[in-house]
């Protein structure tokens, strides 16, 4: 059964000196699940995510992502996941077309595959008019939608989204979530962080990190019942205030 989980984490820790940024966390994420990874700034989310995407080695514990070990197979993890963050997603001084070609190449797609993916993607996002425009000139919402599609170019089993909707307008934010639903519906596992608590409600399950530990992990509905509140925002405020 274990092997079927796209993410399997057991007693994972990361120490910086004597400071435990991530302190013995355990959880798993199922295929096709939308998993919300929440926590206050400084709670350890980024450190945990860096270990899961294979760019930081844990101090102790076990973890596999897409079936690969985070210690020994970090390179395979990088090839088999998608990743986008609010801070970095696409190259601003390349065009839409160039970005797609570049990332397709990085992920090892053939020229023919890239060409085909590019057509599909441009069509689906309605970017026909701007394929030869610099990404810098696109509105943020378009960029984020494009970045998400680019992170899925190589059809990864799982995609990591680090605050993908920060600062995006409310309509585009919702369109972005429709894309997430669609990808999850097609079997892609979604691992997402956000500071918008209404978005936490859209996740199948949500974990909340406090001071390096996972303090709560369940469906939004059960978390609200357990903490006797009406919204995820209140659940978050109750937990993160300690």
């Amino acid at each position, binding site marked *: 059964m274990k092997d079927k989980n796209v993410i399997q984490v057991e007693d994972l820790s990361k120490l910086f000196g004597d400071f435990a940024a991530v302190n013995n966390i355990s959880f798993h994420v199922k295929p096709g699940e939308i998993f919300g990874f929440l926590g206050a*700034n400084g709670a350890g989310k980024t450190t945990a995510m860096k270990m899961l995407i294979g760019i930081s080695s844990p101090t102790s514990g076990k973890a596999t992502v897409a079936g690969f070990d985070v210690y020994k197979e970090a390179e395979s993890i990088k090839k088999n996941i998608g990743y986008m963050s609010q801070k970095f997603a696409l190259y601003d001084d390349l065009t839409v077309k160039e970005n797609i070609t570049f990332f397709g190449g990085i992920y090892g797609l053939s020229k023919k595959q890239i060409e085909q993916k590019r057509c599909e993607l441009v069509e689906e996002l309605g970017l026909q008019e701007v394929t030869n425009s610099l990404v810098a000139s696109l*509105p943020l919402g378009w960029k984020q939608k494009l970045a998400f599609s680019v992170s899925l170019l190589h059809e990864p089993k799982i995609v990591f989204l680090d605050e993908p909707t920060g*600062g995006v307008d409310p309509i*585009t934010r919702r369109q972005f979530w*429709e894309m997430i639903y669609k990808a999850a*519906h097609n079997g892609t596992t979604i691992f997402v962080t956000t500071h918008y*608590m209404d978005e936490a409600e859209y996740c199948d399950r949500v974990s909340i990190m406090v001071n390096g530990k996972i303090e709560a992990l369940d469906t*939004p509905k059960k978390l609200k019942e357990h903490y006797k509140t009406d919204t995820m925002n209140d659940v978050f405020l109750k937990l*993160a205030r300690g």
Partner: protein
Amino acid sequence: MGISVFNITKSYGEVTALSDISFDVKPGELFGLIGPDGAGKTSLFRILTTLLIADKGQATVAGYDVLKEYKSIRNSVGYMPGRFSLYQDLTVEENLNFFATIFGTTIEENYDLVKDIYVQIEPFKTRRAGKLSGGMKQKLALSCALIHKPKVLFLDEPTTGVDPVSRKEFWEMLKRLQKKDITILVSTPYMDEAALCDRIALIQDGEILQIDTPNAIVSHFPKPLYNISANDMHGLIESLTNHEHTYSIFPFGEFVHYTDKRDLIDREDLKDYLESQGLSDIHIEKTQPTIEDTFMELAK
């Protein structure tokens, strides 16, 4: 004496960042500019803090003209830009000292004003600013923007990327500052923060959609609004999108916010329709619109 903006227009080449913007902020008011990235908020901030010159229009800040009296404005305002802009390789204390000194004052002289905020980062005063967490950087930046006791405070997206707990604390701090007679112009993409302002301007694509108190803005929402939930959110959205009477639907947490093209709706009818689409556990109830509903309605 607060802020007055009259017909301000600014373009970058063919892109119009601000199109004929006018509004006033009263002295001591906490005024919010609410809109997404790219709406023109930062351009407006830069014009009002005299870092950018408008193509057209006039503006005054604390009674001074942004063009003729820019030096007086620079002495009278505090500005916290969206991007962290303190000196990363100076310590917390050195940064605060530096900003106090260039404005001809000392930390001691205005400590009262920043105390509330600064005590939270004082334990780390020997740490370099570049090594602080996001929440602490934000508190240091606010302390530095306040240390010369400005009459008007400009905060450009101070809470973007900040978690809900820190956001709540930040707004509590703003409310306390407001009581010390500081006029505050703050921008945010978080619509829930709008409700905490005295008045807000909803801004998108360089234009102001509406200016009013948060209560008045939601009370102007044009249609009855319904919360709808069902067993399958994705299916619910799809079914409502294809429904012939749907005026708007937007997911809102565990519900979908729904408005109908008709003035009156028959809930049983709508429920029957959704059931015919294979949905169950259907709840339909009237709900109060939020600022976000209004924004999306106006931005459509």
